[in-house]
């Protein structure tokens, strides 16, 4: 761990990793919000994530964490605020276009292409990167063979790196749970993301699997050169893996900082455990 791994204050009240200070943040949200018919699900959210950061988003159930991910990937169109990916405004962009800009995600309730093989799941995610049209597919032109070969090779390499090369032809739906979660990450990485959003990657995992996941997350950042933004309930994982953490409650950020800051923040403790007084009365 070098000196540069500290979280420091950057201009305009954001916190960034010291090594990311001179780089353009990969993700920037300003005053982001969404209303669902009067209910402010997320309000005045400010996020800044550097290009090499592992950032965590935590909060009690129903705090709006997944909604934040859905906003970032434009599953919902925000009713207020700005999202910038690598300095580019995303207003009016579709979910697919957001993916082309370098944002990939996994889902809390696994969403694989169940009836397709593992390999197809990964190559399907390369859709935008494979340059051939309907004509090339139908007439099997050279572009088809060239690009398909490239896709297969890249996909195999990825699957191999995650120890899944044996399951290549298995339908994704019949994989065991842990492998399904892993395949979702592989599929997300196949889009060549600049930032990877992981929605509860450790859900349903046992302690040893969680430990493996922690190592994987760091390894993914180093190997694929991507920032990671994750939602997680497993505090051990969050505290150990994340450079910076944001705590969300009732759609608002109540605390932001290093794992240590967060652990000692009275507001966070209150959000999770309730107020001391109430506890005494109760």
């Amino acid at each position, binding site marked *: 761990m070098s000196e540069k791994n500290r979280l420091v204050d950057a201009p305009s009240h954001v916190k960034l990793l010291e090594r990311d200070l001179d780089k353009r943040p990969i993700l920037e949200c300003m005053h982001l919000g969404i209303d669902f018919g009067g209910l402010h699900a997320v309000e005045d959210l400010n996020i800044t994530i550097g290009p090499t950061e592992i950032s965590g988003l935590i909060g009690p159930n129903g705090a709006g964490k997944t909604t934040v991910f859905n906003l970032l*990937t434009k*599953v919902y169109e925000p009713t207020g605020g700005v999202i910038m990916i690598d300095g580019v405004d995303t207003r009016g962009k*579709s*979910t*697919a*276009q957001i*993916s*082309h800009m370098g944002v*990939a*995600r996994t*889902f809390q309730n696994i*969403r*694989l*292409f*169940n*009836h*397709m093989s593992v390999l*197809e*799941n990964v*190559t*399907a*995610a*390369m*859709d*935008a990167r*494979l340059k*051939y049209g*309907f004509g*090339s*597919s*139908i*007439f*099997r032109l050279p572009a*088809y063979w060239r*690009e*398909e070969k490239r*896709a*297969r090779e890249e996909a195999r390499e990825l699957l191999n790196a995650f120890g899944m090369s044996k399951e*290549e*032809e298995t339908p994704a739906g019949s994989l065991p749970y842990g492998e399904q979660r892993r395949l979702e990450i592989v*599929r*997300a990485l*196949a*889009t060549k993301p600049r930032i990877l959003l992981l929605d509860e990657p450790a859900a349903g995992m046992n302690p040893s699997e969680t430990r493996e996941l922690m190592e994987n997350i760091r390894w993914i950042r180093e190997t694929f050169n991507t920032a990671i933004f994750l939602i997680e309930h497993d505090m051990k994982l969050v505290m150990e893996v994340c450079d910076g953490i944001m705590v969300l409650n009732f759609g608002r950020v109540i605390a932001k900082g290093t794992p240590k800051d967060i652990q000692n923040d009275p507001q966070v403790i209150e959000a999770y455990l309730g107020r001391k007084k109430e506890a005494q009365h109760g």
Partner: protein
Amino acid sequence: MAKKLKTVHKDLLTLAILAALYAVLAVLLYSGAMSRQLMNMLIPVSMYVVMAVSLNLVVGLLGELSLGHAGFMSLGLFSGCLLSLFLNGQVPEIVRIPLSMLAGGLVAAIGGLIVGLPALRLRGDYLAIVTLACCEIIKSVITNLNFTGGALGLNTAPVYTNAKHLLPYAAVLVLITALVMMNLKRSKQGRAIMSIRDNRIAAESVGINVTYYKLAVFVLAAFFAGAAGALYGHCFANVKAVSFDYNVSIEILVIVVLGGMGSIGGSVVAAIVLRTLPEMLREFQNFRMLVYAIVLILVMLATNNPRLKQFFAGLHPGTLWKKWKAGRIKEKEAGSHE
């Protein structure tokens, strides 16, 4: 790599069987050994094969219910036949019929685009209802236009030809349709379409343009339906739009479902069986449709039974070939051990 090659071989095998089937039919037809009944069924059955295989793209691969396939066929039929009537006597048949099929396909594809655009916002039952309505609209419009012959139907007697003339075109159309669908299934477009079927939100999140692919599926399926319709029109002396209503759409859907979603070979077999079945049941006279319904239910039950499914899968020529080969290898090994 080996697995990939095997699937390619399976496709080739299906195509080869189709080609062989048409070769046998051609020999029977041109040597005069074919019965009149079978001869009259050749083109309609081929047409249903094309319709089923193209609808399979929408229902099997994209996973959307479309009840408007007969409408696209009708569009292609009338535009193709009109062109054919116009060109009749000016160009030889070998140019005229493919041109009319192409024109029919293109007009139907445009129809598919027009129907597809608003229908894109809908899914499931709602899409089925809208496509059903579009089919009916197409029917009504064609019935009320003057140049399509109105309610009396279009007089296609000048371009009417029998199966002897039409079989080569039908065979080529069936083979092309099967080839295109197979190639598409194993390409990035096919994967994108299937991923939309499996999980639309995830497909979008990995950068797949759902609107584009959905529209492309509608246009492509409509094109083949239109081309098949244009060919179909040539084996009647008079065509009426009212004969291509939702009943036809549903019949094609039944073929697709029975043949297996996404299975091209299955669609072909189901189309042949379901179209010849009513003819073969003629002996039963009044009970014909009743027996047909019972057979349908039985097939439905049989194809849903896992054990029977396995049995049918074992009957696939590709699987039989593999078994035979595996057996030979075993024999060889046994031989070498001795």
